[in-house]
């Protein structure tokens, strides 16, 4: 079983990212469970979303404490949270940032990958410069870096479940997939 944790701020689309990933995994006939932080959601407050993926039904129904990988949609969270808490050794940290992986000082046992999802989102008219909506871009990058889901499945999930600016979201996911390196 693979366990993921998304860190974002309320309004950036982190919870929807978890849901879209669940739909994408489901389209590949695998088993998935996705849920947000069990809390009260407020705009701009730190929120988390969690995804469990398995090739058999997911029976465990608890929060995720030891994720295999983490995905950070807002780099300002790094200053206020210990985002790597519980992250398994060898796990990947995927960060939405214009910086390079070597600009970050994480434990050596982690693999750090960066992608400028905000610029990609803004370029495709998703959100604004101050509040880009990066969930679909980050999922494109995730498909490339973590190799746990096909980009075609991510695209199909967006087409099915994102009613607003569907084409722009698909284009952002594909562009992030193409530019992500790691």
């Amino acid at each position, binding site marked *: 079983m693979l366990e993921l944790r998304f860190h974002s701020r309320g309004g950036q689309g982190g919870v929807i990212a*978890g*849901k879209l990933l*669940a*739909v994408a995994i*489901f389209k590949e006939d695998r*088993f*998935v*469970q*996705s*849920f*947000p932080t*069990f809390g*009260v959601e407020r705009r701009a407050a730190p929120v988390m979303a969690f995804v469990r993926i398995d090739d058999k039904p*997911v*029976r*465990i*129904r*608890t*929060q995720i*404490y030891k994720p295999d990988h983490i995905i950070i949609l807002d780099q300002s969270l790094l200053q206020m949270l210990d985002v790597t808490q519980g992250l398994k050794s060898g796990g990947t940290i995927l960060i939405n940032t214009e910086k390079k992986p070597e600009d970050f000082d994480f434990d050596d046992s982690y693999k750090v990958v960066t992608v400028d999802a905000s610029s990609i989102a803004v370029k495709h008219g998703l959100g604004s410069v101050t509040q880009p909506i990066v969930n679909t871009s980050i999922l494109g990058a995730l498909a490339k870096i973590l190799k746990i889901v096909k980009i075609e499945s991510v695209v199909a999930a967006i087409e099915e479940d994102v009613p607003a600016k569907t084409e722009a979201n698909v284009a952002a996911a594909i562009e992030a997939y193409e530019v992500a390196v790691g």
Partner: protein
Amino acid sequence: MQKVLTGNQSAAWGAMCAKAQVVSAYPITPQTTIIEELADIVAKGLLDAKFIKVESEHSAMAGCIGAQAAGARTFTATSSQGLALMHELLHWAALARLPVVMANVNRAMAPGWSIWTDQNDSLAQRDTGWLQFYCESNQEVLDTTIQAYKIAEAVNLPVMLILDAFFLSHTYEAVDIPGQEATSKYLPPYKPSIYLNVDDPHAFGGIVPQDIYMEFRYKMQLAMDEALIAADKADDDFKAMFGRGYGVVEEYRLDGADYVLVTSGTVTSTTRTVIDDLQEKGHSVGLLKMKMLRPFPAEKVRKILSGRKRVAVLDRNISVGMGGVWSQEIRSVMYHLPEDQRPPIYDYIVGLGGRDVTPEFIEEIALDLEKRPVKDCDQVWIGLKE
């Protein structure tokens, strides 16, 4: 058709499949997205229902009672304090023998304010005359919503189906949605024999003097006895048609097990993984899942638990001053068995106010059960903060 749905959406889609004709609901906290989803479904024309938005949960149930009495199939949903506010009318729906169906998201009672899960809200309604079913997956929520109408309308009693806050209500997973044609075959339109009908007038809700009130209650008890059979039949028929069944109780890896963990709600799902691990390590422990609280499946529970070495009931609730509710119920039905057939029943209080019940925690209970003295079996609290 399969879709990725939350538990809340699953309840709403269940009501849609069952073709509820009137949805009467209060839309604000502690209401959940069940009603938001249903409002959307009705607005899109996917369900031909009258959606009545009311000013309180008390009125929400009053709306269901009125519509059901007029011959409509009704649905509502609530949670915690909202369910408590309905209390008076829960009795009314049951005593008026109206097969209303309601989804309740299990949330802890306030104060302190909580939106997280425990069972005290629904268990406090145990004696209102409603059937109660506790679910462990989103699929079970959807399927139970459909089954609920079948059972309710067979015995003329209301049914409450219950799902854990967050662990189901806000969790997405793949859910199979039965086709409309098959669902309509399983659950034909609601046709009450007596309803508010100007062409066939009857008196409703009149005064019932001392000489006949007891008989009204006795008939409810008979209907509950009948519901034991109706619930099994509704599940068997559902399984025959859709390939999925749950049982009002379920034995999981109990063959020859000395020790038994008894669970309800999502704790059941997590406990399955713990039982697998412990059996692999050589422990003789299995699981009894309780789905139905009312009517209480006494015979089934007696048969399953008699002769076991020890039983641990994981109660995500507390009747303060006494203990967990499920353990009291189970002890009560086991009491008149011969002493050598009657295992000690330990009452573990767990997960109140949404505290996570992890596999490690459940394993600790299973191991504690094997060695704890019998005299210490009441209200075992593990993992309390100092």
